[in-house]
Structure formats: structure tokens, C-alpha cells
């Protein structure tokens, strides 16, 4: 399905109809529902037209003094109306429900697709834009498939069925009645066009109101500090006044639109009254036809009004489809499952090796240059270097969050590009700098990578991360909900949660990006001791990017990075002797540690 979409990209602009054709499989799923809906819609309109016809005949029988006929008509009318009630409910329910089903399917597919997209996509597209695809664009397509198809087809059938009946009764009267129609459609499309432009303008001013409010509430301390409340009040009043003026214009236009719609019905009645009255006097029609005409015209007033809305829904639905297509046509830039068949051992043994790795983010200069590095199993490494030297990029490449050039990154002598992504990520656990937690319980967050974890395992992990006691202090302990709707954790707690989540997996390769930046020195010491105990078995590799001294002294080797290159890799003592860059960094860290303890002591005394 995505192959199609990618091919399309090369053909540049597509007609909307083509676009819908390419995604037909999404729409065809519910074809039976659609057909049922349409069928009942036709039935509805047929029955709907028979009501005025029956009324006409009933009236005619009064006129011709045949009252014995009347009961039959009433029963028929009641029957028709009742069947129509059923048909109406079914047709509406089927078609509007179709919109909901489409919404469901589209969201499901879209979400599934988005999960396959790589990190580069998410850095390029802000969350807000994606949310808008998921919510607004999908909604536009729901309106198109549901309400749009209902209104559109209803209008079509209403005209197709009502018109012949009217012509049959009186071609002349039909002609006069429909003289108004083009005028009505023209007027309505004109006004609704204006309403739309004005509406956009109003939305624009409302956005200004919102922007000023947003900015001033954020900067309220500045406004209050400088006693500028009355200035800002004036500014807010200015934009509110502008909003009032634009909205007043919109009000007038909306009232016009409303009145034009109502006017058409009234004019229709006038036409029937004048022309129908004349034809009655002349003897061309009877009083029943006269009544039927009024009722038939009334029947058409709603479908006529719906024409404009249908067009809008089609336009908005098409635009939404195009935007969704843009997302659907993106594919992951990572080699995904190329090696599925040839792949045997999911867990290659041995170390991690980087050979002459150079990496750049799309359209940027290289961040990593000619990296050569060999990490042996069973050891702990620390990656140090100034902010922006490429530490985080290096770590994030190992689980292939970004595409890794072929022949540069090996695990157990095997190029990571020849491993399925899922196998690679089973061996490698990477803890990014930001400690993102989901709005869920602590337990579920911890067991995120392994939902079937047992409670003792969770406790072991939180104990290592020195978090267990704090979790137990919460009223609901491990079932406490964290995130937006729950308990707010401190930065340090979040970080240790993320750490516990990562070490719970006991992966062969553990990569931690600055995992202690929000943890105090004492806790850090505890965590490192526990972590080293946990990681020292077997053939595990631990790589930590950090500045903190306590880890540096415990590591098997330090990797020193500068401006995207590896400067040196050696033990702490030896680097301290040989590298002046490292000495300086170490001294600053030591002094800062001293300063911190100094203040802590000061606080004690």
C-alpha cells in the first residue's frame, strides 16, 4: 500500500479523484454499508414524494365528493410515513456511521504508519502538525464520507425523484418555480463564499487575541513589575474591538445567508399562489395539485440548502486527503527487514565496533567524523566531551535511531544494517537525555519495554536506581499514576524512573545519555555502585555519556570526544597524565563538586 504512495510522489501533483482512487482500499472496506445506506436513501425519497401525491389524491377525492375513498388514503399515508421513518433512520445511521467507521479506519492506519517512521521524521515535523493530521484532517474525511455523502446523495435523489412528479403535474408551474432555483443557488454560493472569507478573517483576529493573551499571561510578571497594566489593557481592548468589528460584519452576512434561504421558501409559495392560482382559475390544475406543489417545493428547500455544504465538505475532505497522503507517502529511511531470510542468530556475541563512521543529519554538516572505536564485552565505558561534541548522536546511532552508513557499525562482527531493527533493539537499550514518561502508572512505565515483568524485577530495578523507597512513600505506591493527570515527579525522580526502565531490560548493550544530571551526588554514588554490581556479569557493555566524576573513576575506560572526533580512549589516570583538555575538564568538575559540598555544609551548619 505504501509502495503505491511512494511511486505517486514522483508524478508530482495528483488530481483529487486519483488520490481517492489510490486509497480506495480504505474506503471500499465499508462498501456494503454504503450501498445499504444509499438504497434506503432512495427508498426514503420515493416514499417522501408519495406523501404529497397521496395528499393530492385525498384532497381531490374531497373535491369530487367521494368521501368513501378518504380512509384508504389516510391509512396509506400513515403506512408510508411509518415506513419512511424506518428508512430514514436506517439510511442516516448507515451513512453517518460510515463516516465514523472511516474515521476509525483512517486513524488506525495512520497511527500504525506513524509508528514505523524514523526519528528524522519526528524532528522535522512538530507534534502539533501531526496531531492536526490525526484529529482535524481525519475529521474532515469523516464529514465527507458521512454527512457529505448523505447530504450530497439526498439532494441528488430528491431532485431526481421530485422533479418528474412536478413536471407531470404542471410543466409550466415547475418551470416558474425553478426559475428561482438558479438564483437561489447563485445567491447562496455568493454569500456563503463571503461568509467563509469573513469567517477566516474573524478567526485570524481571534488568533491575535489569543496570541496577545498568551504572551501577556506569560510575561505578566514583567507587565506588573513595570506597572504597565493599563498599557496592556489598552492593547487588549484594541484587538478585542477589532474582533468585535469583524464579527459584526460576519453576523450581518450570516443573517443574510439565513434570510436568503428562508426567502426562497416564501417565494416558492408566492409562485405557486400566483401561477398555480391562475392555472386553477383557468382550470388546468385542481386544488389537490395546488397543495401538493406547495408540499413538494417545501420538500426541496432542505436539499437545495444542503448543496453548498456538500461542496464545502468535498473541498475540505479533498484537501485533508492530500495532507494525509503526504504523511502516508513518507517511508522510513532506515533499512528495515532486508535481511529477514538470511538472518539466523538474533543475539550476536562479541563487542561493539565502529569503523570509520562519519555521520551528518540531513542537510547539515557532519556531526561525527571518522569514528573508530572498539568496545569489549563485560566492560563499562564513559564518554566525555563538551556540550555539542557529538556524544548524544553517537549513542543514538547505535540503536539506529538514524540511518547508519553501511559497513561502519558492527556488533559481534556483524553489520547492524544486516540485522532486523527489532533484533538490534533487543540487544541495545538506549536511555536518551530527556526522561519521557507516559501518563500511566509507575508500574507500567517501568515495565514499558517488558510488560510481562514480575514485581520483584521491578523492585530490583528501582532499587538499583535508588527510587524504590520514594515510590513506596506514594499512597498508591507502584500503581501511582504519573504524568499530566497524575502525580508530578521531580526532575530527579523522572530521570531515575527512566533509568530504572532502561536497566530493567538487562540488555547486552546499555547506553545512557547523561543519566545523572538531575541526581544529587550522594544518590549518584549509590546508583553507580548498584549499577556496576548489576552490569559486571557476563558480556555486558555499558556506555555512559557524562561529566560526573564518580562514574569516571569507576569506568574501565574513558572515551574523550571533541568536535565530532574521538581524541583519546584510555583509563582515567592515564588520560589525566597525557591530555591537557581532559585535565582541565576534570579540574572544573572537581571544583564544582567542591563548591556544591561547600554550600551543602554551609546549609548544615
Amino acid at each position, binding site marked *: 500500500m505504501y509502495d503505491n504512495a511512494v511511486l505517486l510522489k514522483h508524478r508530482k501533483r495528483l488530481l483529487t479523484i486519483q488520490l481517492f482512487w489510490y486509497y480506495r482500499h480504505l474506503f471500499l472496506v465499508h462498501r456494503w454499508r454504503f450501498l445499504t445506506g444509499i438504497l434506503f436513501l432512495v427508498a426514503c425519497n420515493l416514499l417522501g414524494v408519495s406523501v404529497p401525491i397521496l*395528499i393530492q389524491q*385525498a384532497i381531490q377525492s*374531497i373535491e369530487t365528493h367521494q368521501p368513501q375513498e378518504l380512509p384508504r388514503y389516510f391509512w396509506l*399515508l400513515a403506512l408510508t*410515513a411509518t415506513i*419512511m*421513518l424506518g428508512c430514514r*433512520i436506517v439510511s*442516516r445511521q448507515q451513512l*453517518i*456511521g460510515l463516516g465514523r*467507521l472511516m474515521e476509525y479506519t483512517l486513524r*488506525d492506519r495512520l*497511527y500504525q504508519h506513524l*509508528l514505523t517512521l524514523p526519528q528524522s521524521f*519526528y524532528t522535522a515535523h512538530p*507534534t502539533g502538525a501531526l*496531531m492536526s493530521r490525526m484529529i482535524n484532517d481525519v475529521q474532515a474525511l469523516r464529514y465527507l464520507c458521512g454527512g457529505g455523502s448523505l447530504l450530497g446523495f439526498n439532494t441528488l435523489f430528491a431532485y431526481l425523484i421530485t422533479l418528474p412528479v412536478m413536471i407531470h403535474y404542471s410543466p409550466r408551474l415547475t418551470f416558474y418555480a425553478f426559475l428561482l432555483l438558479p438564483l437561489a443557488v447563485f445567491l447562496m454560493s455568493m454569500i456563503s463564499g463571503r461568509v467563509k472569507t469573513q469567517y477566516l478573517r474573524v478567526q485570524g483576529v481571534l488568533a491575535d*487575541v*489569543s*496570541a496577545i*493573551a498568551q*504572551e*501577556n499571561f*506569560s510575561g505578566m*510578571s514583567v507587565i*506588573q*513589575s*513595570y506597572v504597565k*497594566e493599563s*498599557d*496592556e489593557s*489598552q*492593547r487588549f481592548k484594541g484587538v478585542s474591538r477589532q474582533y468585535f468589528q469583524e*464579527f*459584526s460584519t460576519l*453576523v450581518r452576512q450570516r443573517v443574510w445567508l439565513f*434570510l436568503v434561504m*428562508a426567502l426562497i421558501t416564501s*417565494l416558492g*409559495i*408566492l409562485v405557486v*399562489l*400566483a401561477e398555480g*392560482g391562475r392555472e386553477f382559475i383557468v382550470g388546468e390544475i385542481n386544488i389537490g395539485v395546488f*397543495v401538493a406543489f406547495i*408540499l413538494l417545493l417545501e420538500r426541496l428547500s432542505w436539499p437545495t440548502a444542503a448543496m453548498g455544504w456538500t461542496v464545502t465538505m468535498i473541498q475540505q475532505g479533498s484537501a485533508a486527503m492530500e495532507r494525509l497522503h503526504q504523511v502516508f507517502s513518507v517511508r522510513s529511511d532506515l533499512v528495515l527487514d532486508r535481511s529477514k531470510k538470511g538472518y539466523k542468530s538474533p543475539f550476536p556475541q562479541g563487542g561493539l565496533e565502529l569503523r570509520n563512521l562519519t555521520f551528518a543529519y540531513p542537510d547539515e554538516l557532519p556531526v561525527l567524523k571518522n569514528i573508530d572505536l572498539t568496545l569489549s564485552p563485560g566492560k563499562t565505558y564513559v564518554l566525555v566531551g563538551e556540550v555539542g561534541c557529538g556524544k548524544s548522536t553517537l549513542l543514538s546511532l547505535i540503536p539506529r535511531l538514524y540511518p547508519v552508513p553501511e559497513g561502519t557499525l558492527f556488533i559481534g562482527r556483524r553489520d547492524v544494517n544486516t540485522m532486523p531493527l527489532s533484533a538490534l*533493539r533487543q540487544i541495545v537499550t*538506549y536511555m*536518551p537525555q530527556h526522561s519521557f514518561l507516559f*501518563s500511566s502508572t509507575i508500574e507500567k512505565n517501568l515495565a*514499558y519495554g517488558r*510488560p510481562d515483568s514480575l514485581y520483584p524485577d521491578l523492585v530490583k530495578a528501582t532499587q538499583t536506581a535508588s527510587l524504590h523507597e520514594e515510590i513506596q512513600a506514594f499512597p498508591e505506591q507502584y500503581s501511582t499514576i504519573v504524568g499530566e*493527570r497524575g502525580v508530578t515527579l521531580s526532575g530527579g525522580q523522572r530521570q531515575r524512573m527512566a533509568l530504572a526502565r532502561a536497566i530493567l531490560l538487562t540488555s547486552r548493550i546499555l547506553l545512557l545519555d547523561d543519566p545523572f544530571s538531575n541526581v544529587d551526588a550522594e544518590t549518584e554514588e549509590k546508583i553507580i555502585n548498584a549499577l556496576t554490581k548489576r552490569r559486571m556479569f557476563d558480556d555486558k557493555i555499558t556506555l555512559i555519556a557524562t561529566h560526573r566524576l564518580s562514574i569516571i573513576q569507576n569506568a574501565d575506560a574513558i572515551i574523550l570526544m571533541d568536535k565530532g572526533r574521538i581524541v583519546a580512549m584510555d583509563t582515567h589516570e592515564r588520560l589525566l597524565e597525557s591530555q591537557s583538555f581532559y585535565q582541565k575538564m576534570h579540574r*572544573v568538575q572537581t*571544583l564544582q563538586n567542591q563548591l556544591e559540598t*561547600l*554550600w*551543602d555544609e554551609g*546549609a548544615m551548619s
Partner: protein
Amino acid sequence: MSQQKKKEENQQEAFDVQQFLDEKGSASSGLKDLALIRKLWPYIRPHRVLLGFCLFLLIPLTASQVALPALVQYTIDGPIIHGNLKELAMMCGGYLALMGVHYVLKYYVMVLSQIVGQKIIYALRTDLYDHLQTLSPRFYNRTPIGKLVTRVTNDVENLSEMLSAGGLTILMDLTVIIGVLLFMTFSHWQLTLVTLLMVILIVGMLELLRRRSRRGHDRIRTHMAAMNTYFQESFSGMDIIQLYQREQKNVRDFRSLNQSNLKTCLQTVLYDCSMAAWAEYLTILTLILILGLGSLAIMQGVMTFGLLIAFFLYVQMVFEPIEDLADKYTIIQSGLTSIDKLMALFNETPDIQPPSSGLLSQKTETSTLQLAGAITFNHVRFGYQREKPVIRDLSFQIQPGEHVAIIGHTGAGKTTLIKLLTRFYDVDQGSIELDDIPLQELPLETVRKQVVTIQQDDFLFSRSLAENMTLDFKIHSRLEHDPTLQSHLFAILQQLKATNLLSKQKNDWTAPLKERGRDLSGGERQLLLFARAMYHNPAIFILDEATSAVDPTTERQIQQAMALASKGRTTLVIAHRLSTIRQADRALVLSQGRQVQFGTHEELVRQEGLYARFFQCRKALED
């Protein structure tokens, strides 16, 4: 795998929709509907004459609307039945004229009433904004900005919808319904009775369906909120999802949420569809009943065809607004909810109160009052929460024109001290005095005008350089009319050696800063903040020095700016760098909300206390 375990796993995997559905209710003012509407009265009052006029117009409006079908009736029973073409033409002309009158009236009533509604909205919105400006940081710290923006936009919009859909429109519908029913009663009371019964039936039926539908829509809304959160989290935590290989599980999780939403939607669709269909059905049934009873009456000769047709038209006229009533009810409900939320905001009282008595509170003196700049803290105790004091028993005195550095660890109370001094919070115990006048007895305006702070990352507005410097709403027009003002601003920048701020704006004082000044460097931002402070020429100047490192040139520039800004003013600096501390006359060392040391650099170095050790450490670090 055992059956038991599998079951457990399924349970664990079933996505917790309920977790999202348990949403806490928002703040409420706890008022009943009518009381809420009464709260709006002060806003409605100024427009009572215009509204009264609109109400008066409703009489001819309703009359003309009711008269139109009656005219149809007379036309049919008169000229048409009698075959008089000339009279028919006249009647049609009359119909057209009446129609014209009716629509003109309707236009004015609708437009006037809605514009009055908008005026009310305007007043309410600006009042709300003004009220929010009086609230202090305590309020802003616990209220998300997004929520406040929603109040002044969406909630006010809901209210606006309510005023245009509800209010006069509903009254208009009601008068029409009553007018029609009255007119029908005079023409044929039996048929009217039937119609009335059907009206009651339809209202009951719709109400029944509406209740279920509303319950459904509430649930859909909650589902949508849950989905929103889910997307938001998924997209911002995508790396975690992919790294922990949760894609499959997330697809399942999302599907269960999506399915639960679909189920509710499909149920609700059924109710929604049924509402329209039942309304249509009952309308047709009424027509049939009228036709049946009417035809009997016609045959008895007590009714005419014209009246029958008029009744047909009347039935439509009565039933149509009833069908809309449900929608309008929803709009009114959400409008009322919004009023409730808005009133809850209006109920927030500022916790900083202006001085209630004393000579200094009088307006005339505020503008002329110039402080010398002496600061006294007298056994001050303060905590953001009373039981957790941040400042405990702090006392010190600073002379006018003195330059003091404040030193202390994170959490020592340095920033809090500034907030107390600018009276964003009131002390719990003790007192703060400026020029020996307790802060509470000075007008707030004076305090804030005389004490100016530069916070570490103070707010820049997405406005022009001139506006950011002066914070003056009318600065652009003032710049145009007053050339000296521009040179004054320029002189400030020149003094600060920050004229590149202006050249970066292509020498345009009125061009908005790019991205709220985000493309300025840290140093440039600081200098702009200095310029802002200098323009306002306060008696006391407080600076929170940036902790992050800046390049030596910028550092020197900022040092210079500080020297300039502190000249002739009492200056407090929360300092980190030695050079900054050495610039000050005295240093105040804080720890845990208490004064540890206070004295000149030389004194403190000799004392061998915290300061001396800090100095050693810092000196080594800065080398």
C-alpha cells in the same frame, strides 16, 4: 503458557480507557443556571434600551410572520376559488409586500440583537483580561497559561454562541409558536388542539432522544480528549516507543481506545439520526391528522381549502423551531458552563492588597513620590506554603545608593527575596521597609516603579525593540511625534554599548523582534533588559546574574552595563562570578533563608567563614 497467565497478560494489555475517562471537573463557581445569567446583568444593563427596542420589534415581526399563511388562505378562498384574476394579482402583490416587511424586520432584529451580544462579549472579555492583570504570581504559578488563554478565547466564544443562538432567537421562536397557535385557535380550535398535542409529543420524544444523545456526546468528548493525550504522548515519546519496541502494543492500545470511541459514536449516531427522523415523522403525521379532520370539516362546510393549506404552512412554522430547540439547548448549556468557568476566574481575588489607609495611599502623591532607596528587612519570615519557610528570620539594612551582592546556594532564598521586595508576595512575619516606610503602606504602583528587576531570563515580547524597551503601548506614535524620544532611547543603547541591537533590527525601532528575541544571543538579551530597566529609571535596581557562561567580551559588556545601571541607585545583585561580587560595596551571604555573613569583601575574606571558602573555590574555578 498456562491459561491463567495468558488471561493476566490480556488484562494487563487491555488499554486503560477508564484512566482517561476519570477526568476531574474544572473549577466551578458553584452557581445555578439562573444565578449565572443574573451575573451577566451588569453587562446587559448598558444595552437595555436597544434590547427593549428589539423586544418591541418582535411584535410586528411575529404578526407579519403569522399573517403570511393567513394571506395565502384568503387568496385561495377569495380570488382563486371565485376565479378573479385581477384580485389574485393584487393579493399576490400584497403577499410580496408583507414578505418584504417581514424580512426587513427580521434582518434588523437578528442583526441588532447579535451585535448587542457581541458588545456584551467585548466588555466581558476586556474586563476579564483587566481582572487577570491584577492577580499575582501565586495565581499564575498554579494556573496553566493555556487554561487562561482558553478562558478569554474559547469560553468567551461559547458565551457568544449562546447569546446569538439563545437569547432573542429563542424568544423569537417562542413568540412565533405562540402567535401561530393563537391564530390557529381563532380559526379552528379542534385542529389547534391536535397540533398542540403533537407538539407536546414531539418535544417529549426529542427530549428523550436528546438525553441519550447528550450522554453519548459527553463520552465522545472524553474519548477525544483521551485520544489527544495519546497522540501527544506518542509523538513526543516516539523514540522511547521505538527503542522499547512497543509499536505492536501501542497499535493494540490505540485500537482499543479507538474502538471504544467508535462504539460510542455508532450508538450516538443512532440517537442523533432518530431525532431528525422522528421529527419528520411526527410532522407528517400531524399533516395527515389535519388533513383527515380538515377534510371532514370541509365536507361539513365549516372549513375552507384555504384554511387547510394555511394550517399546513403553520404546522411547518411551529415544528421547525422545535427541531432546532435541542441544538440550541446544547449551545446554551455549554454557554452556561463557560459562564460558570469565567465567574470562577472573576472570583479570584488578588492576594496583594493596596494600602487601605494612610496619607501615602492617596493618588495625588503616588506619581510624585521619589524614594531614596534605603532597604530594611526586619525579621522577615516567608514561605510559598506557610509551613515550609524559604526565608526564616532575615534582617539586614542597605543604605541608599549602596551596591550589594547576594550570594548563596540554589534554594537559599535569593530569588524569593527579590519577589518580596517587589511585593509579588507579602511576608508572613516581620516587615520590609523602603525609606523606613513599610512596604504595605506604600502604593503598589510606587513600589513597582521604584524597584526594577532584571531576572535571569526575563520575558521579551514579540514586539518591536522600542516596545520591548519602553513597554509603552503608544511608543510608536510617540516616536513619530517626538524626535527627542528616539535620541533618548538611542542614548541608552549607546551608553550600554548595545547599539548593535538596533542595527540588527536594520535600524528600525518599530520592527518586531524575530521569534520573541530568540535569535538574540544571551548577552544581547541581557543588554536589552538593561536598556529596559535604565529607561524606567528606578531608585532601586536588582539584577539576577545569569549562571550560564558567556564569552569574555559579553561578560565585560554586561559588567560595564551593570556599573552604569547601578550608578546613583541602590543596587542588589544575585551574583555568581567573582568579578561581579568584587564590584559590590558589600556582600550578603545567605543560606537556607538566613543571613550567614554580611560585610565588605575584605572583611568577609578575613572572617574565614563560608564566604572565604567560596571565594577560594570560585577563584580557582575562574582561572
